């Protein structure tokens, strides 16, 4: 294929956004997101992308500006990471509550202090409950494809919610790797022009973001939640269309060699490819291990996850964020979610929970082998979770 190129993932992500004919990009630079927005600024400056690039003075204003753009009927994009995502936190709720279909890329990075610019999921996990659709890319091709899919999902009138595409900072965002690029015409066939469900228009005045008291707030939340739950099915439709057009198949939950697995690893994001390699090596050594990867984190595809993990004796979960003070015997949000999913199941796997890879601490094949070794050893977790690679005296 002539469209297969070696390209930095951040650049590819920006190219995908450009192919989507966005109208407004508003962004504030933060490592490791910078290459994405720099390239978008390039595309606009060179006239390759007919959009307004608003170089805002903070991430808070970036997310606010894309809200304004979206409410005016434009297709809007922003990108951030870490502290920037934390600064956006307040407004993330408003984007989803006002049902504005913006798309954001997050180059996942640890949150201060100590200040640390490397990958983990401490930035995105606290945004879990902001009402966004949250997708996680495993590799450059996924990050690229997900951008295009994200706009279609967000703008679907059954959904009308913001979508966040997560890619690991540096380990994915700054990687040069082969990506099969799409043509503009192809993308236009897949992604129809935006049709705003409603907009700020002097010819049809409406008030967006009113004061809602006790008598309506609950109903507003219900409306929003039903749309978020609905997005799981709509995403599946979109992925089927995408496969039909581009030949690449996506699912909310991906299983690998789980058929007869005694222990199943659960991962998210770019470490999943390393995990797959580790699974292959362990299989070669006769260990019955498989891998389940969560691509869609919100809405949580509970039924798919339950089915994917059914039959495993042990589920070994890798969380790349510590939930401080741990609730209910878990160390991180993914472990917590899995325990909840299996609470009512007639047969429950043992859930072995590991927190690792904080602040860019290396996660390699040895890491996964150690997780599986500990999980299979059968002993109860000494603590409520294992902080795998912490140095002790």
């Amino acid at each position, binding site marked *: 294929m002539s469209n297969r190129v070696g390209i930095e993932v951040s650049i590819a992500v920006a190219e995908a956004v450009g192919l989507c004919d966005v109208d407004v990009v508003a962004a504030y630079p933060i490592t490791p997101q910078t290459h994405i927005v720099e390239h978008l600024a390039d595309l606009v400056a060179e006239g390759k992308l007919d959009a307004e690039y608003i170089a805002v003075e*903070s991430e808070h204003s970036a997310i606010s*500006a894309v*809200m*304004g*753009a979206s409410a005016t*009927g434009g297709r809007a994009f922003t990108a951030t990471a870490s502290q920037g995502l934390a600064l956006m936190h*307040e407004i993330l709720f408003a984007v989803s509550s006002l049902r504005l279909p913006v798309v954001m890329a997050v180059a996942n990075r640890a949150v201060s202090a100590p200040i640390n610019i490397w990958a983990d999921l401490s930035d995105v996990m606290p945004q879990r409950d902001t009402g966004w659709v949250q997708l996680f890319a495993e590799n450059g091709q996924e990050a690229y494809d997900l951008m295009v899919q994200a706009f279609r999902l967000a703008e679907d009138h059954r959904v009308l919610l913001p979508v966040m595409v997560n890619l690991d900072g540096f380990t994915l965002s700054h990687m040069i790797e082969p990506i099969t690029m799409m043509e503009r015409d192809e993308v236009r066939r897949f992604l129809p022009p935006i049709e705003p469900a409603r907009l700020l228009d002097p010819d049809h*005045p409406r*008030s967006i973001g009113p004061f809602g008291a006790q008598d309506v707030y609950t109903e507003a939340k219900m409306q929003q939640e039903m749309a978020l739950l609905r997005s799981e099915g709509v995403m599946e439709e979109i992925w089927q269309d995408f496969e039909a057009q581009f030949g690449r198949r996506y699912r909310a939950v991906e299983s690998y060699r789980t058929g007869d697995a005694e222990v199943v690893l659960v991962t998210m994001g770019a470490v999943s490819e390393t995990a797959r390699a580790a699974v292959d090596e362990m299989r070669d050594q006769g260990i019955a291990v498989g891998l389940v990867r969560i691509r869609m984190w919100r809405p949580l595809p509970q039924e798919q996850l339950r089915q994917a993990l059914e039959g495993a004796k042990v589920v070994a979960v890798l969380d790349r964020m510590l939930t401080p003070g741990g609730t209910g015997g878990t160390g991180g949000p993914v472990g917590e979610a899995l325990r909840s999913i299996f609470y009512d199941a007639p047969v429950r796997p043992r859930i072995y929970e590991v927190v690792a890879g904080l602040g860019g601490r290396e996660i390699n094949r040895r890491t996964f082998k150690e997780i599986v070794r500990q999980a299979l050893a059968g002993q109860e977790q000494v603590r409520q979770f294992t902080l795998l690679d912490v140095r002790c005296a």
Partner: protein
Amino acid sequence: MEAAIDTQKISMKSLPAFEALASGHRACQGCGEVLAMRLAMKALGERIIVVSATGCMEVITTPYPQTSWLVPWMHVAFENASAVGSGVAGALLALARKGRLAGGDTKIVIMGGDGGTSDIGMQSLSGALERGHDFVYLCFDNEAYMNTGIQRSSATPRCAWTTTCPLGEEQPGKQEAKKDLVGIVEKHHIPYLATATPAYPFDLMNKVRRGAQVKGPAFIHVLAPCPTGWRIPTHEVIKVARLAVQTRDYPLYEVVNGKYILGKPGKNVKPVAEYLKAQGRFKHLSENDLAAIQQEVDERFAQLQWLASRP
């Protein structure tokens, strides 16, 4: 394409019939802020998009399922109206260029109170002014956080009482000067800047209209008395706002492309004590306090005269 903003000078004879706000809003009796907003909107007309910061004006005009607004209106949060408005501006430009805007020319109106402008919204305002989007910003300054119950803001004047600068033995009222918001905005070198008050309704409307006609950012600072927070009788709202101007505590002026233009000097300038003594929030002031404030007022006005005297 037809221009969004009418260019005719507004007088009682040419008063626009248009109202962007319906009755039934929930503002306090005698609210000077909602009056200022009503007048500003009359001047702007119907080809506008309003982006509002959180505050009294947001709460009292949109009690779900009712809205007072007859023009498109959006509210997101307290500190980000200027950023939301920047996004609206970006989208209007892009969509117009791509032929996807159905209607005619549209003006963006961003508004906030003194808290939403000179405190929590200062950063997003500064960013929007610096980037030079095409919008008119209306700051309705009632000199405290009235929506939450009269707490001190950076716009609260020296000595004034609020619930967070109470009249203590050690610290009677606000100890610090009012932030020079207009001066800060001026330093962004925007094409149009003006001060106004609803006591001079036609001056206010014409300034709003002039500001909205320039391309790029315009900023209208409106002193809007709050009878509840200023502790004044509701019927005296206009009288007190007028005294602010007549005593030179709040001079009316414009800055057009950097040139200061001072409003016509009043015939007889009144002592600032007349303005202050009309308000319960200043009732504790001693003669010494009044003299000190008079001196500040005189110095500020002299500086303004000097600025206006420059070619």
